[in-house]
């Protein structure tokens, strides 16, 4: 095992973040106390320190937020010329850039992800997302959805905790660009950057009610999704909840898009440059502690490259630095919540009991907070639960294959279909594999790349609808055939 380089701690300062002790709900342009909601605490998963009290919105609070969004839609936003709508989004994008460091620190505090990721990936993409969709606002008649595509009305949006602000951007930017107003519910464990985003809407002078943010847990989300005056439901999260939403919106006129779970195959051929592939494997499953719906959680290695890849992978994992998310040297941050940690532990134990071999590099876990070491299972069969179920943690299941056809067969052997990775030096093989894989995103010789111009979304039980680019507009426009 190579020696880890020693670095002095290089923590990012928390001073840039001005946390309030408690937060209300953001409804109609201002922070308000709940009517029938109550307070709950949000903690830093790295230290279990209470960061702030936030509000769990009740049914009446959701009613108020939806009513505010409806009013803003009817009276202001739908009447605003598209160009002016776009300018508000550009304004928001600029403020996001101006306050990027503050947002990155807050995201790492509340979510537990390394500052390197929130600073270099999440927040830049958030701003990019708003820039991209800002420009669409006055060009919708050129987007291929008819000469005068209409917005849907009020969008109810429920987002997960793994990329809190980025998921907000994926939802809010296209919704507003298309002329809808929104009520957004951030995840219960990561509400803080959404609340800071509310402040940004205020700074941008966004008309009141165009963006409303109701914090809370599952009940709040359900109240929002099932609200009779919501025209559009957009959800990112687990497949189980996605199915519940598909059922609860049955028989309504609500347009629904769902971005759900995954169990992506990351397929390494024997001609792949090993060092590059290993970086990609690490990025595929250990990026964001594996809290990624499109994570490359199933590694498929061509049999004759197996020893070389595994040796190199284990060596690389030995150099990963786990710890303080705010430390700029940290590679692996904290697991987002104790519930998620329990699930990762449970499935990992199942992996062992079903006969797979478990390995982690020597790794000291902090005393406080929620932590799980990078973990690799070898000797995994397709029937094992760790090869079938989404773990949503830093746990990699390794399988092997001999022929491209076998790789395709194994990769597609899942009810999910969100993403896949292919590592090979051969361009023709990349495109052949890409054609065979039943997944919405295929990364070749890379993994976990995102771009606002690039449509993202799943096949099969990974959900429906696309986010990003021209395709992402469809979710927020009335395009004729109703679904």
């Amino acid at each position, binding site marked *: 095992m190579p020696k880890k380089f020693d670095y002095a701690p290089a923590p990012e300062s928390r001073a840039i973040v001005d946390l309030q002790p408690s937060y209300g709900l953001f409804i109609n342009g201002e922070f308000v106390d709940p009517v029938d909601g109550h307070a709950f605490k949000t903690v830093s998963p790295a230290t279990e320190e209470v960061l702030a009290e936030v509000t769990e919105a009740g049914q009446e609070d959701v009613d108020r937020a939806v009513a505010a969004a409806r009013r803003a839609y009817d009276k202001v936003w739908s009447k605003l010329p598209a160009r002016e709508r776009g300018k508000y989004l550009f304004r928001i994008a600029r403020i996001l850039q101006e306050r990027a460091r503050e947002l990155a620190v807050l995201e790492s505090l509340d979510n537990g992800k390394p500052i390197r990721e929130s600073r270099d990936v999440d927040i830049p993409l958030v701003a990019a997302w708003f820039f991209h969709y800002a420009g669409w606002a006055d060009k919708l008649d050129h987007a291929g959805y008819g000469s005068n595509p209409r917005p849907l009305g009020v969008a109810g949006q429920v987002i997960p905790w793994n990329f809190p602000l980025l998921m907000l951007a994926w939802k809010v930017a296209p919704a507003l660009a298309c002329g809808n107003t929104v009520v957004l519910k951030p995840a219960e464990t990561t509400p803080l950057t959404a609340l800071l985003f509310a402040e940004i809407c205020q700074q941008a002078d966004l008309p009141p009610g165009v963006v409303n943010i109701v914090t809370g847990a599952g009940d709040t989300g359900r109240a929002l999704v099932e609200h009779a005056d919501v025209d559009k439901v957009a959800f990112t999260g687990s497949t189980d909840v996605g199915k519940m939403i*598909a059922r609860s919106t049955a028989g309504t006129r609500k347009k629904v898009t769902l971005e759900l779970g995954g169990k992506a195959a990351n397929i390494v051929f024997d001609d792949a440059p090993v060092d590059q592939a290993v970086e990609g494997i690490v990025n595929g499953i250990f990026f964001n502690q594996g809290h990624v719906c499109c994570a490359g959680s199933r590694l498929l290695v061509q049999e004759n490259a197996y020893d070389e890849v595994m040796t190199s992978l284990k060596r690389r994992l030995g150099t990963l630095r786990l710890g303080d998310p705010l430390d700029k040297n940290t590679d692996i941050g904290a697991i987002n919540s104790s519930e998620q940690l329990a699930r990762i532990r449970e499935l990992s134990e199942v992996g062992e009991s079903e006969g797979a071999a478990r390995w982690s590099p020597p790794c000291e876990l902090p005393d406080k907070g929620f932590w799980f070491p990078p973990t690799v299972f070898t000797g995994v069969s397709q029937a094992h639960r760790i090869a079938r179920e989404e773990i949503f943690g830093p746990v990699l299941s390794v399988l092997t294959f001999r022929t491209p056809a076998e790789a395709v067969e194994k990769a597609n052997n899942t009810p999910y279909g969100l993403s896949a990775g292919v590592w090979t030096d051969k361009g023709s093989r990349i495109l052949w594999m890409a054609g065979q894989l039943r997944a*919405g995103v295929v990364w070749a010789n*890379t993994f976990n790349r995102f*771009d606002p111009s690039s449509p993202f979304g799943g096949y099969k039980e990974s959900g429906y609808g696309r986010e*990003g680019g021209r395709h992402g507009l469809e979710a927020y426009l009335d395009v004729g*055939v*109703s679904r």
Partner: protein
Amino acid sequence: MSNIRGGAPGRVAVRKTFKLFIGGKFPRSESGRSYEVTDRKGRFLANAAMASRKDARDAVVAARKAFPGWSAATAYNRGQVLYRVAELLEGRRGQFVEEVAAGEGLSKSKAEAAVDAAVDRWVWYAGWSDKVMQVHGSANPVAGPYFDFSVPEPTGVVAVLAPQESSLLGLVSVVAPAVVTGNTVVVLASEERPLPAVTLSEVLATSDVPGGVVNVLTGRTAEVAPWLASHMDVNAIDLAGAAPELVTDLQVAAAENLKRVVRPESTDWAVTPGPERMFAHLETKTVWHPIGV
């Protein structure tokens, strides 16, 4: 109507048996059941097969089996095959006019207009085969050294509840947009007006459409549709012909494997559609291909 008319005086007509169309073959319902189909005035036209749950499942198996080949066919080839269907539809124009007129209670001229529109609709969709990727796909200007592109791909096996009123034009308007892009289809014909669907299946069988690409069931919508909606190997369902009281339950059943659902809405099938119904049965796949020397 050929089943009623005798031809020359004194001649006894040879009537057609209306069967199911599954995997390119014409079985009766495995249940052994049939039901009486009448014209709008209640006069007997034919006995149609009354498909069962087992028939629906067999049809899904056939559609799944046909999917790899049909979806991998070149767009040019699919366009040719579908255009060939239009040719044969035209060739059976008289038979369709009789069946549509009898089943829908239309005058001969209105039935002719509906059949002509159905043939033209089929041609319209046939021509889309090699255009939909350019219209619905994209090259994406990502900030990085990747050629990033998005292409439409067929969703898979699509179950279709054909419109109840418009027995041929409506049927063609929901089947063609699904198959032209490479999906395979299990279609449940209009319950009370199933005969044009069966005749269409005879057209499909004698054109170059591979067996299993389109499978036609006749029977009770309320009985068969729930099996299609809940089938775990069906990827999408078009509820065009679902009665309002069935829609919620069918959508709930479809949620079990997150089928893509096209909801029913009142549609004038005579109006040339947009491409949206094709898009509804497409997935978008995005590929990040590396660029480098």
